[in-house]
């Protein structure tokens, strides 16, 4: 026989669970169905030979993404006048 006390505890636990359910973090941003790209494939910038372009100034190793990123990162600092002046 289940005592009244246990029933009260069980009921309170159920109410607590129901109340906590309202605190859940549900995804509120619509997840768009991304279309499948239908166009031509594109080459990646670091796959170019840095010496091939007439106006290329940065140096990186052909095919090496991290060296291309490093070249761009150092070029980015040209936009930081605090780093240029001080």
């Amino acid at each position: 026989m289940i005592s009244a006390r246990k029933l009260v505890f069980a009921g309170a636990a159920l109410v607590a669970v129901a109340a906590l359910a309202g605190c859940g973090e549900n995804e509120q941003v619509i997840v768009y169905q991304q279309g499948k790209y239908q166009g031509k494939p594109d080459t990646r910038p670091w796959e170019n030979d840095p010496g091939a372009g007439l106006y290329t100034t940065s140096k990186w190793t052909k095919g090496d993404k991290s060296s291309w990123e490093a070249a761009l990162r150092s070029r980015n600092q040209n936009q930081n006048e605090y780093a240029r002046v001080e």
Partner: protein
Amino acid sequence: MARMKFLCDAERCIECNGCVTACKQENEVPWGVNRRRVVTLNDGVPGEKSISVACMHCSDAPCMAVCPVDVFYRTEEGVVLHDKDLCIGCGYCFYACPFGAPQFPQAGAFGMRGKMDKCTFCAGGPEKDNSKEEFAKYGSNRLAQGKLPACAEMCSTKALLGGDGDVIADIFRARALKRGKGAEVWGWGTAYGKPDNPRQQAPKGAKS
């Protein structure tokens, strides 16, 4: 991984439209198409604010979501590009974009819409890099030359920053910490440096 982004500092932008001109010149953008433009709030009122706006290369781009012919793709470095060969000029992307980035060349007697044109973050498009075909359709491919977008690189006040999101956020953070915020960034001292003798009184009748 690099995530290419633009960031415009409204405290610094002086509405010179140099970025607009640089973009036009670099990419030989046709008449009537503006890949980048400067928007000013409270124009003419002291405290007016300007920002330079173009494609923001969204991480979850609405233009990609609505395009009926799926011409958009996002490169590994986070740039949203499109294939003009497939574009049907329907204009859905223009309605979806919160920034008005997609532009349509209008030619002919009935104002027909041409193929969509937008900021490419100076990354060209799906043609051979730095080829004539790529330049004719999409403009310059500066990323393949190890450069950053022309608009950001030539901005005279360095209001417009462009590049890896983390790097430009660091530059902007350092700047904001140095100069302060709100009213602190206004005035003579900010523009021309602090005076040698701050207690010195201005001569009578002098204008600040």
